């Protein structure tokens, strides 16, 4: 897929204005496409922002949020990390702008929180089942049979603590393993579990990306594809990164129904560490293809500032939501952080002004195929 995109960010009017007689515009995302004026409403999932009150996740928060647990030390000096996961299955949340779906979640979001530890730590995860069905947590990695979260479901209102040693280092999925498995996974009970090598990895701007989809009309075909839970989110909220800085992405595919998914980076190449279990890259590439539960680590840095796309190179997935942008800034780490703060502050202001804001940045395009 060849997208040549130059950027100009500007703010869209909010949905609350739609009832006024003001003309709204749609289109102009793609080179050569007309910009249309309308007196009606706009249906534009590529530039609407879901009200955080309804949103299934805040993808920008999820991106760089790593949970290290409540830390304590055992008598022999081993680090113990305590986590709490609350399973629920009764909420209806907005998974794509304007589309509401009964989500089953760990801690209220899809994907669930990213759990992170260092190889050799003792992990204790307490699952509280706040739902109406049996649920469990099944971690990938090495652990005893009774900690595998497969044979013992936790009843509604029940509680169980999974305890095991984090091993080996790498990137792992965790998900509910109750039957019907497909149902529990498609509704959203999954997340990323990262085990760092003892010696650590080189300093980098780290982020987690989980690829998934939603089959909102239950026809065993996904209606939406996303990275980090909401379709097209990083199109209107590009991920800001710094020129020449090492970027590390922990990437996991949890897509149901479609056999394959992939990640393609524009105008760059990355080192790929399959499953993240080795410190030597397996491949130097710009695309990696994964089946469900496959994962790995991507490392790269951008040489030139500007806007770069990343997306599934299965174009169907890309055009149904699995598309995003990196905004490479030419500056210091501090200025990037300031930019991020500006972004989040602006969003908070906008959300407070109306119930359903579509305040966002449109990517206007020029350029050629």
């Amino acid at each position, binding site marked *: 897929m060849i997208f040549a995109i130059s950027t100009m960010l500007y703010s869209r009017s909010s949905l609350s204005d739609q009832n006024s007689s003001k003309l709204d515009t749609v289109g102009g*995302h793609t080179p050569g496409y*007309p910009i249309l004026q*309308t*007196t*009606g409403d706009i249906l534009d999932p590529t530039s609407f922002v879901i009200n955080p009150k309804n949103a299934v996740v805040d993808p920008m928060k999820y991106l760089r949020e790593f949970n290290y647990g409540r830390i304590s030390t055992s008598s022999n000096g081993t680090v113990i990390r305590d986590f709490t996961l609350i399973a629920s299955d009764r909420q209806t949340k907005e998974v794509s702008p304007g*589309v509401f779906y009964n989500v089953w979640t760990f801690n209220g979001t899809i994907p669930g929180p990213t759990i992170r530890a260092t190889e050799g730590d003792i992990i204790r995860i307490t699952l509280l089942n706040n739902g109406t069905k049996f649920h469990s947590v099944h971690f990938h990695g090495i652990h005893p049979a009774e900690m595998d979260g497969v044979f013992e479901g936790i009843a509604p209102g029940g509680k169980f603590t999974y305890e095991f040693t984090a091993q080996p280092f790498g990137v792992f999925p965790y998900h509910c393993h109750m039957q019907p498995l497909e149902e529990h996974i498609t509704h959203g009970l999954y997340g990323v579990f990262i085990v760092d090598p003892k010696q650590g990895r080189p300093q980098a701007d780290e982020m987690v990306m989980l690829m998934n989809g939603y089959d909102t009309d239950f026809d065993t075909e996904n209606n939406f594809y996303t990275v980090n839970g909401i379709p097209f989110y990083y199109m209107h909220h590009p991920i800001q990164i710094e020129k020449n800085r090492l970027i590390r992405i922990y990437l996991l595919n949890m897509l149901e129904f479609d056999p394959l998914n992939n990640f393609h980076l524009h105008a760059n190449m990355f080192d790929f560490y399959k499953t993240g279990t080795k410190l030597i890259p397996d491949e130097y590439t710009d695309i990696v293809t994964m089946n469900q539960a496959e994962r790995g680590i991507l490392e790269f840095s951008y040489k030139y500032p500007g806007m770069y796309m990343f997306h599934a190179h299965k174009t169907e997935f890309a055009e149904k939501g699995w598309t995003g942008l990196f905004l490479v800034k030419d500056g210091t780490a501090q200025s990037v952080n300031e930019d991020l703060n500006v972004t989040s502050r602006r969003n908070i202001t906008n959300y407070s002004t109306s119930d359903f804001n579509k305040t966002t940045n449109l990517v206007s395009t020029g350029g050629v195929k």
Partner: protein
Amino acid sequence: MEREEGNIHNTYRISKRTILFGVVPFIVIGAMVVLLLNSPEIIFQSSVKPLPEISIEKVEFLDDNIVAFVRNTGPSEITIAQADVNDRIYPAAIEPGRTLTRLADAKVIIPFVWNRGEPYEIGITTDDGTRFHEKVKSAAPAPRPTVGQASTFALIGTYVGVIPVMMGLVWYPFIRRLSSNKYNFFLSLTAGLLVFLGIDALLESNEIAVNALAPAFNAQILIIMVAIVTLITLLYVSQRLIQRASKRSKPDIEYKSGYSSRSEPDLDLKDIRSSPTSFQQQQMIRPIAISMMISIGIGLHNFGEGLAIGAAVLLGEVALSSFLILGFTLHNTTEGLAIVAPMAKSRRIPLAKLMVMGLIAGGPTILGAWIGGFLYSPIATVIFLSIGAGAIFQVVYSIGSWMYHINGRGGLLNNHWIIIGFAFGMLIMYLTGLLV
């Protein structure tokens, strides 16, 4: 007297109670409506939200965008969330707004550079994540109401409707010279043609009702309803028409027919005695009235045909080839024959009058093509086709009763010319229909 009074008194007393009986059902049903609308869970344990249902009634391909006309055909209000082309999500506009009350409609405009002649699938997703879609076999630019396009439709309508009907009328002098048997033959041939057209209209409207309209419209029942109401209304109108004409020409009340004027107030014996003249007049008035009704019926039918042609062009289902036009032309020439057949034994009809009948029958094709091409609506098409069917069956009835009248009692099925003519009429339509 007393007894009568008692009766009246009794009736009055019952009336009071009757009023109560009349009101109680409304009160009970009203209470049920309030209860069910406000708290259905009292009666039904599960209050599952009813499934949404929308119909994509029409898809138009404009210069740089695709327009889908959607209607909420489900049981409750819905909100449209997203639109897609070929299952790929695109930004779109929806007018007047994204929330649709029951049976309300909206226009979804998707900026999209489409390719002529390629198939497209337009999808609309509601707020609960259900996707509805409509396939278009071959994208074609929607006809715009420009002078050029309007003239093209007018030309098509003239070819398909006006010219063939006029050509059929040219057979008038030929028909006039026919013997009684041949006259019967042509009359029943006409009836056969019309029965074919009527059934064709019903099937056509049924097809649209099933394929393009949501079950919420109950469109199949609507077809039958509209056809029956049209039939009886036109029967009434034609009776009045004949009555008025007969009144002006002092009709013969002894003349047995379904159109007898028993209610005529100003008849006198003198009129009755002058029966031979009146009979002759009646003999001329009724066929002309029948021919006029046939013209109107065929006009309504051709209006429906015009709608179908215009819509087919709009929906890109048909590449209007000269072959197709030729087929319609041959098919419709027989309609002119249907108009002149009943008048074969009347006094010579002025050319102007014939022309008027021809225009009434053929002209609506042009009007239909305009409406179908510029403002297509499946529900309107179904209704017009059903009106056409009802009109045609009224004409068949009129021809039948006229033939019954001129052949005397039991004459209809005794004459093999009538049977052959009827069968031949349908066969002609079937064979010329193969060309379309």
